[in-house]
């Protein structure tokens, strides 16, 4: 599509303004992480060495003194997020495929059809977390799952499946059915068709689900707080914990937040490419 100069100017203005909105908080974190307490509490200071004397003290404290603790939380977040993302991908894409390609009619069970089932699945996200964490704790303490990576993975998968099913269902519905039909005609089972033909075509959908699931699990706070005690505790709990009675240590929180965000951003960015590549391919084919 050709753009007029005005459209072009508008386009770039929006891009620049919104990039600033997105990036400035990150810049502010970076500069705050180099400030002394007084440089923070006595008004805004913008540029290191220009209007305040930077200090590496907080980074040093985080990466040296607190390294063990940081790595422990880090590792736990990584395990919980990866585990639940994989599980949600497997179960979610299968469920989504089922709902997209077959008609279900549970005659003996409430007489449910596809869209009732879909609705029930998404309704799992309606449950108010603040209360349901209590029966979860009861259940998990019976099963010895409190403070384990597996416990968190199981819980997060529960939260991720509904999105995974819905997003994947929408993707599969829009996939052209001819390829699957010809595979079936060639004698492949539905399962083989799904694994060999459908999944590779659905990379963008799978990647979106993976990003959302990973980001959700990496960042979840309430269940991480209540379901873990020491061994499996994750990063958001560590970050939230920085508000202590000693005063909010903006400088330290900033360093910590940057450290916590970096890997997700990297993973997200690495994956994001596949979405666009896949999508473009889809558009050409479409």
């Amino acid at each position: 599509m050709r753009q007029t100069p005005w459209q072009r100017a508008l386009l770039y203005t929006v891009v620049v303004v919104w990039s600033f909105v997105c990036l400035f908080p990150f810049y502010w974190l970076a500069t705050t992480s180099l400030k002394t307490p007084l440089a923070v509490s006595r008004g805004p200071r913008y540029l290191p060495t220009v209007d305040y004397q930077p200090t590496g003290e907080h980074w040093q404290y985080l990466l040296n003194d607190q390294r063990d603790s940081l790595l422990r939380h880090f590792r736990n977040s990584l395990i919980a997020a990866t585990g639940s993302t994989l599980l949600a991908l497997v179960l979610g894409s299968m469920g989504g495929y089922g709902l997209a390609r077959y008609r279900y009619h549970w005659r003996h069970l409430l007489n449910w059809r596809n869209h009732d089932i879909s609705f029930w699945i998404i309704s799992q996200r309606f449950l108010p977390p603040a209360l349901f964490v209590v029966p979860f704790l009861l259940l998990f303490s019976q099963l010895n799952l409190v403070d384990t990576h597996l416990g968190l993975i199981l819980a997060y998968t529960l939260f991720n499946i509904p999105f995974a099913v819905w997003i994947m269902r929408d993707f599969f519905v829009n996939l052209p059915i001819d390829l699957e039909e010809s595979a079936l005609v060639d004698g492949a089972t539905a399962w083989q068709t799904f694994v060999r033909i459908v999944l590779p075509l659905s990379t963008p959908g799978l990647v979106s689900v993976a990003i959302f699931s990973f980001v959700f699990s990496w960042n979840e706070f309430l269940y991480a707080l209540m379901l873990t005690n020491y061994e499996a505790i994750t990063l958001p709990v560590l970050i939230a914990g920085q508000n202590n009675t000693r005063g909010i240590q903006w400088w330290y929180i900033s360093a910590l937040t940057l450290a916590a965000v970096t890997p997700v951003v990297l993973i997200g960015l690495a994956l994001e490419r596949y979405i666009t590549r896949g999508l473009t391919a889809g558009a050409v084919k479409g």
Partner: protein
Amino acid sequence: MLYRQLWLPILLVIGVVLGGCVAAAPADQAPASGEAESAAKPFAGQKVVVVTQTGRSIGGPVEDYAPEWEEMTGGDVELQQFAFGELFEKIITAFETGANDYDVLIFPADWAGDFMAPGHLEPISEELLAKLEPEDIIPLYGERITAWGETVYALPYDGDGHMLYYRKDLVNPASPYAAEFEAQYGYPLDEPQTWSQYYDIAEFFNGREVETAGEMAPIAGVAEAQRRNAQSYWVFLSHAAGYGKVPGNPCFFFSCDNMTPQVNNPGWVQALDDYIRSRDLGPAEQLQWDVSDTRVQFPAGAAVLNIDWGDVGPISYNPDASVIVGQTGFGVLPGGDRYWDYTTGAWVEEVNVAPFIAFGGWIIGVAADSEVKEAALDFAAFMARPELVKQLAVTPDTGINPSRYSQFEDLDLWINAGFDQAGAEDYLAAVKDSISHPNAVLDLRIRGSAEYLSVLDTEISRALAGELSSQEALDNVAAGWNEITDRLGREDQLNQYRSAVGYTE
């Protein structure tokens, strides 16, 4: 073939679940340490998990001194920290659902009703207490705050109470502002003794350009925590104590006859009016400030007056965080200019100093369901030993405040920690006068105190935001408190309150 495919995903799920359960099952093997070694190191291979709030203030000393204990006993200490705002919910829910993993708990004394009363903590034996020089511990901490009924459930670690901080360079009879102040208010400018003097000073200075760290800048009258869902209701209670505490009557929150809430009596209403006045005499964002903000802002020169726990003393002497080193005055909380005697239903026109022992300090307990009870008790005693807490009270980045007589006697400790002689004397006198004051008010420490105080917190926040008048807000609190009391059982609650304040008929 078909069934193999069906099983694949199901097996995956089941496999992961079962695998996890097995992996999660407690590993029961005893550590295979040699006989000789375990004799010398009694807790070899035992892991003690300590839980407390985040930050160096309370947990820092555990990080610093645990290696010494590990070396001595062969045990292994792990520290887990949570934000203050989540610590209570986290621990109590873990206790109640049987999901508790913690052995040693360093927790605020006013949770006693919820932790000690239901038996979640291990009673502390006489022998253990005897090792900690009990005669040195200020009785308020040793006998009241760490005990439930007759049984001691925790070890004293930290002392805590609210006190007054002010800019001594501005507020003193020789200050450049003294003459103007005296002309305006008719008495000399000095440490405020009553709340009306406190507000005179606040009003006099609020918005005025004064010199702070070499710069002329407008200063606020007060820096008081007023944030909702934080620790600010304690600041309000510090206002209320002077107006509502009846000398000689230990029952402050409730009447000890029938648990009638006193929270909406005229004394408390006056206190809330004052607290609302503080809103207008402080920085604009004060409604969003918690104690954790005011204790950053006051030392950064934001205000003339401040109410806080003992922590601001050492912070104000820390040149990294404070621009008013050596310029801070310390005092007992101002008294009420008069107080409401609810037993007679009338104002008594005399100054009533009633320091509020807000919070009561962090104390160390051992979980009753701990699997390494011996080691946990030993570590608790190690952290609470007199030499250590004495040192900790003067370490600037800890929040450990004095709880022992000896901490007040050793001035050198404080001077070595950065205080100047006069400042150390002033600070220690203020702390000691507060906690040993005969009219001091103890925090609410009965079952359900978290809920009582949350109702209070919500309603005073609404009054601060202008949604309700002081009287309406506190009437709501009284109604809420009655509802809680009835729900938990009025008779039970009355007995608890009586024993918590040491009331005898």
